């Protein structure tokens, strides 16, 4: 017993991390399913509806409903990637070729460490975030680490040693670098409002969410929200900005030469980025786990209240994931030069203007 209590400070974080990783990976696989299902519904199809697990799928009515909804499909998808023949083309640079998928996935999974996903009230009555590491520079950490993900794509394109992946990688890196600027600038006003000098929480994401308990920032800062949203679409390489893949002109883009589980890792990384982007947008602009703008949170101080706050946060994240998929089937892909023009000529000046405007506004507001 004493051994357990002594080692608890070390084991507990590990248990928490493993739990969070498993939930996160589960979300990734189910957002793949959501993508397939929503895509097919939008296109007038049915989507995956055949996969049935032996026991669970044969419960009289429920089993059929679950099968029709494709709930068991992610298992089949994952197994397919595992059991496919592992082909490494002869012309690739082996070391980097194997490294690239890992480099693509690792940053996406690392950023979730600082992602607050709910709140609870500790015994002394203070509201605390539910997060693995509540560090003060949470947003900076996310921006820094998530942009490392582009290395995975660049390495994949370069080590594949053929034209299409190379072009895809070049496009991806140029696009990511240009949209990072607009993204960083667009969230500066958010922190200027939410974490002004003298507030309790510093630069933490938790502080931003707490600041939105009255009014969501998407209402207060719509321009920032728009620029951030567009940049997130570009950063996650989702349509209409999926320059890195653009299967119409680049076969598969950076992952053309990849197959089986290595491709699976890229695939999961893309959805991990989508989930992270959605979660960030919810935290920064949609009020995190706050109930509705202008309404007090109905979740109480109990543990059940903490669970409710997490569920509400998840519901918002799911809506954002749905929005990502929804936009995918609504907007056509931009041409590469249009992507660049949008990033450098429109979003970046807009973000700078927005920043200056907010700075002036805050300066006037403070002096009055």
């Amino acid at each position, binding site marked *: 017993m004493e051994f357990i209590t002594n080692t608890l400070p070390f084991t507990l974080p590990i248990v928490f991390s493993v739990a969070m990783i498993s939930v996160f990976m589960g979300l990734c696989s189910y957002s793949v399913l959501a993508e397939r299902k929503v895509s097919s519904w939008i*296109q007038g*199809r049915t989507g995956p509806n055949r996969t049935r697990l032996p026991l669970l799928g044969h419960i009289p009515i429920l089993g059929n409903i679950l099968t029709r909804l494709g709930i068991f499909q992610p298992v089949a998808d994952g197994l397919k990637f595992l059991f496919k023949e592992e082909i490494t083309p002869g012309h690739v640079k082996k070391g980097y070729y194997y490294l690239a998928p890992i480099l693509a996935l690792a940053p996406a999974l690392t950023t979730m460490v600082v992602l607050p996903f709910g709140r609870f009230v500790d015994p002394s009555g203070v509201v605390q975030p539910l997060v693995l590491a509540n560090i003060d520079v949470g947003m900076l950490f996310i921006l820094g680490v998530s942009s490392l993900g582009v290395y995975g794509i660049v390495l994949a394109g370069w080590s594949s040693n053929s034209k299409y992946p190379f072009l895809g990688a070049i496009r991806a890196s140029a696009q990511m670098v240009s949209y990072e600027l607009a993204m960083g600038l667009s969230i500066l006003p958010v922190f200027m409002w939410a974490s002004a000098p003298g507030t309790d929480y510093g630069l933490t994401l938790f502080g931003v969410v707490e600041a939105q308990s009255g009014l969501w920032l998407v209402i207060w800062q719509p321009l920032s929200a728009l620029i951030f949203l567009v940049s997130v679409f570009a950063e996650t390489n989702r349509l209409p900005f999926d320059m890195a893949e653009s299967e119409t002109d680049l076969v598969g883009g950076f992952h053309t030469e990849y197959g089986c589980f290595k491709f699976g890792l890229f695939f999961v990384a893309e959805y991990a980025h989508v989930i992270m982007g959605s979660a960030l947008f919810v935290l920064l602009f949609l009020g995190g786990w706050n109930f509705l703008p202008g309404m007090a949170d109905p979740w109480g101080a109990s543990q059940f209240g903490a669970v409710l706050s997490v569920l509400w946060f998840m519901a918002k994240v799911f809506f954002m994931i749905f929005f990502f998929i929804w936009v995918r089937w*609504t907007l056509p892909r931009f041409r590469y030069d249009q992507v660049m023009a949008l990033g450098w000529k429109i979003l970046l000046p807009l973000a700078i203007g927005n920043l200056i405007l907010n700075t002036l506004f805050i300066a006037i507001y403070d002096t009055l």
Partner: protein
Amino acid sequence: MAKTKVLERKPLTFAERTFIPQIVTGLKTTLAAMFAKTITLEYPEQRPVIPENYRGVPTLVKDPNGREKCVSCQLCEFVCPPKAIKIIPGEIDAEAEPDRAHVEKAPKEFDINMLRCIYCGLCQEVCPEEAIFLKDIFSMSGYTREEMINKKDKLYELGGTLPDQHHKWDKKKAAEAAGNTH
């Protein structure tokens, strides 16, 4: 040179130049499409409605009395553009069908190679006995090339009996009974 008329385009309003109203309209369209009825068939369980004159797999049919209609005239073999049909003519068994034996012939072997068949329907068109029909079967599969050659019994199994009104042999018999043999 034809006269070209250059149309004046209305200048875009500010809202149009941001594309945001257009994007919102697009999102509405896709959302409506999402809740619309699916237009696909779930194939193995649901089958498409095959029109009457569909040209599917060629088959041989029997007459309402269960007799072979094919008299192995080999016209279909001759007309078949990809040479998918192979017929070896044979005699009709005199003990089983004394009426028809030595009057007509019947195919001893009748092979249609479905790897060659182009579903043109010329065999059905040319057949003087209306013995070969292209049915509504549209999917054939097999593991070997041999499996894809439809033999005579397979062709009759697929074709079945056609309830047509000719009754060639019944008429002949009735005429015979009336003392009117040709």
